[in-house]
């Protein structure tokens, strides 16, 4: 079992919908104003494998509540207490668009 560790409880996870390794997991809520992206090159069988965490975007101004992957795996989205949904490019982990609700916290997301 492999683990990503944060400073608080993660509230949502998204897994890149690809079969090819590495498996990429994006987790939200585990750190203030950050998300974690980890790459797993091996899973299962009780093996412990290394993961790499990173902060794809330092522009979050509040806790990120949710993360979701597009079915095409080219982008993922995260959203949270800053009332914004961030669309992030999968390959570069950089922001490609921001949707601002303005009034309400983003609690959950999903791609069609």
């Amino acid at each position: 079992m492999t683990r990503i560790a944060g400073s608080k409880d993660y509230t949502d996870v998204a897994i890149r919908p690809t079969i090819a390794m590495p498996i990429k997991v994006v987790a939200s809520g585990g750190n203030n104003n950050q998300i974690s992206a980890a790459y797993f090159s091996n899973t299962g069988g009780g093996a412990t494998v290394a993961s790499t965490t990173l902060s794809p975007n330092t522009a979050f101004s509040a806790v990120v509540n949710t993360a979701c992957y597009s079915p095409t795996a080219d982008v993922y989205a995260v959203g949270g207490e800053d009332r914004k949904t961030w669309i992030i490019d999968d390959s570069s982990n950089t922001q490609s668009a921001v949707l601002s609700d303005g009034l309400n916290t983003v609690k959950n997301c999903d791609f069609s």
Partner: protein
Amino acid sequence: MINRTYCIIYTLTFMALLQMCHPWCLRTTVNLTTSVDKVDWAIDGTYLAVTSSAANTVTVYDTINYFNVLTYTPAGGTARVARFNRNSSILAVGVSNGRVDLLSGKPPFSSTPITTFSPHNKNTVDLGFNYADDKLLTCYSDDDKFKITDSWSLASRTTREKDIGDRQMACKWSKNDDVAIANDDKKV
């Protein structure tokens, strides 16, 4: 008539250009009176399921016109999460008492479940179907075990469990049948 045709063409062209320049900028808002906990698209994009635990409802919207086609309140518990299966024929509702209610994911929608079963008797926090659509993952905010129900659509379904030593916040399938679990010990 000609002016009207030109107007429609210009409008469509403008919309197409807008979409190319700002592909995320077209938005439809559906207003609810309580906060939303989970959203889930049907795989073909035709329906959207919205779960509100505060209202104890799962609301399904037709994404052509965003009309409400179903409002479901589970009996004997609180709706925590609803997700479509991989071919969108079924909408699974996870309930706070551990029960999973299977509803039709396509018309005719009905608030009478097709069937119900309980992988566990704990507070469901998330659920999901694997990509092969033959396994159902359920995880719980008040227990250390997550459950996998094999052959979930059949009466002969069986349930396995894994104890991860911590309560759960969210859970997802990978495309090659691994699972990721967010727990209440600051880890995934």
